[in-house]
């Protein structure tokens, strides 16, 4: 069966932080790693707490983890199990989780702050 990676982000303006008071390079890095992984054919979905709270409420393991506070975010789920908690994994870790071989590590692209959301209907805020 093919692997699905789901990333549950903390409430944030956007996945790059471009529209916050300061830009976190770590967010830009991870966003680009996600983009890379998608290009390897892996299904990756990202959910931002302030934009897609429904996804958090509907995913039982995520909702349970949140009972311990919002510091558990970001959560990375592989299929339906929590694989990483409280930090953004490196590209290598992501690749390993998805069962993809990393050929050559190139610097990576980023996902979007103020871009339209991918598929999910829930509205949410940034900025």
């Amino acid at each position: 069966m093919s692997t699905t990676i789901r990333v549950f982000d903390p409430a944030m303006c956007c996945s790059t932080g471009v529209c916050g008071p300061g830009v976190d390079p770590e967010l830009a890095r991870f966003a680009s790693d996600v983009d890379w992984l998608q290009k390897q054919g892996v299904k990756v979905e990202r959910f931002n707490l302030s934009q897609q709270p429904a996804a958090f409420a509907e995913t039982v393991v995520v909702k349970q983890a949140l009972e311990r506070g919002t510091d558990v975010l970001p959560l990375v789920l592989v299929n339906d199990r929590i694989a990483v908690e409280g930090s953004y994994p490196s590209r290598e870790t992501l690749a390993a989780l998805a069962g993809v071989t990393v050929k050559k590590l190139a610097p990576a692209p980023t996902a979007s702050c103020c871009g339209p959301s991918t598929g999910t209907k829930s509205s949410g805020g940034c900025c």
Partner: protein
Amino acid sequence: MDFLERAPRNLFFTGKGGVGKTSVACATAIALAERGRRVLLVSTDPASNLDEVLETALGPEPRPIPTVPGLFALNIDPEAAALAYRERVVGPYRGVLPDAAVRSIEEQLSGACTVEIAAFDEFSKLLGDEPATGTFEHIVFDTAPTGHTLRLLELPAAWTGFLQANAGGTSCLGPLAGLKAQQGLYDRSRAALIDGTRTLLVLVSRAERSALDEAERTRRELSELGVERLELVVNGVFVATDSRDPIAKAMVHRNQEALAAMPTGLRQVPKMEIPLLPFGLVGVDALRRLFGGVPEDGAAARTAPVDSRTSLPGLVDLIPALEANGRGVIMTMGKGGVGKTTVAASIAVELARRGHKVHLTTTDPAAHVQAAVGGAVENLRVTRIDPALETRAYSDEVLRTAGANLDAAGRALLEEDLSSPCTEEIAVFRAFARMVDEGERGFVVIDTAPTGHTLLLLDAAESFHREVLRTSGNAPEEVRRLLPRLRDAAFTKILLVTLPEATPVHEARALQRDLQRAEIEPFAWIVNQSLTPLVLTDPLLVQRRASEARFNREVSELAPRVALVPWFEPRSGQRFSLVDEQFRTAEALAGSGP
């Protein structure tokens, strides 16, 4: 009134602050309603004065104006719209997600961009969603001063373009995550805006050079947006009845000179003039007379005669307290058109003349600080926060730092994000924080944009401050320290500028309350363009002077310190200083005797 005969469904009134947009918009709406139409009057100004002018408490939904059958009005309040939006998002998850998670969503949805988009959403609904407003034959928009309004009018195009171009990634479009779904609405509001059969844009101006120049710039920008139908109203044209009164003569001269120098582009626009009235335009009865133009008999008799002399100190008396620390931030704030730029320039010039290093700047995209100063002054540097330049600089910086280790695809994604209209908010805000930071090393005099825009900037300061406290943060030092600095009364001195009239005084009063809520105490109030200390004989001016007394009193009660600046005629080709003017007027008064 020409445009009343041919009024399309949507009428927009825009122009420099203080030119009388609200008065003309209200008078138009009343006149249309009295012709039997159903009219909705809408203020898009975050610091709306519709409630006071119509003497009716308004909200975000249309409310009937009791004294004018057929007329309804509402205020688009960006903060309230953002709050309602936030509640729509968060409400369903209370008790479903843990409290801490709900709180963190709320905090995230308190930013400047959410506020802007929520307000813009409301505006689009009125303009582009026919069913929502279908029961009205006319919608009259009283807008915020030009800079802010142009941005609002440009947003439909900006978001539409961004949505079409931005292919991937998660969205920070906030209220517009429904955005993609909203795209049809934005397209429709943009189409309505430029279509001459549906929308008329009225540029409101005064017979003053700066106001006419701004009307011309707005005309050009609106033409570039594709707006087809524009008209010009020159409001408050003074007609002297006593030709011996030197102040009356000066005012007439100033009006005529400005009208004669009207920019060529503006001359092509259909124009009407409205004379200056001897009374303030508050209340439906007063507004009904705006297009009539005939002052009510006995209006003067209703106001008690007052001693024209005043014991209020002048601008010059504030200088010692302002310069005491040898550095810091001085900010002028207030309603559009009260003379914030003039007062800021004048104080900056005076401090520089006294040997201080001074930086004069403005957050108002429509202000002309350099023109207010005139030529070069030793020790004085004059700049402005240019939203386009700041946005470009900020984008470059992000690409250089956060984008440094990304490959081409990653950089392309980041660039795509940066092309969002949100970026401008951040960039301007950071530039503002940088200016305030400079106050550590000398004097920084900041002329702010009109109240509404400034409130949003302060709101951003507060929400970013919370965000900075909450996150480990990559925010620059000046952003972290912004709010504490604004709250430090020894470092930041805020001057609330007003005219001796109802709406600017009451807008400043509301602004003072908002500042105090943010734990910021204004330093002083400045009553500008006062006729009170002048010797006058023209009956209309005498009447206007009499009406000032109660506002001088009101300001004295509200303000920790007051300074009064007399009306004077700016003389061209001369470096200008209100501080000098004060002396000149004092001398003239001494010469003319009590």
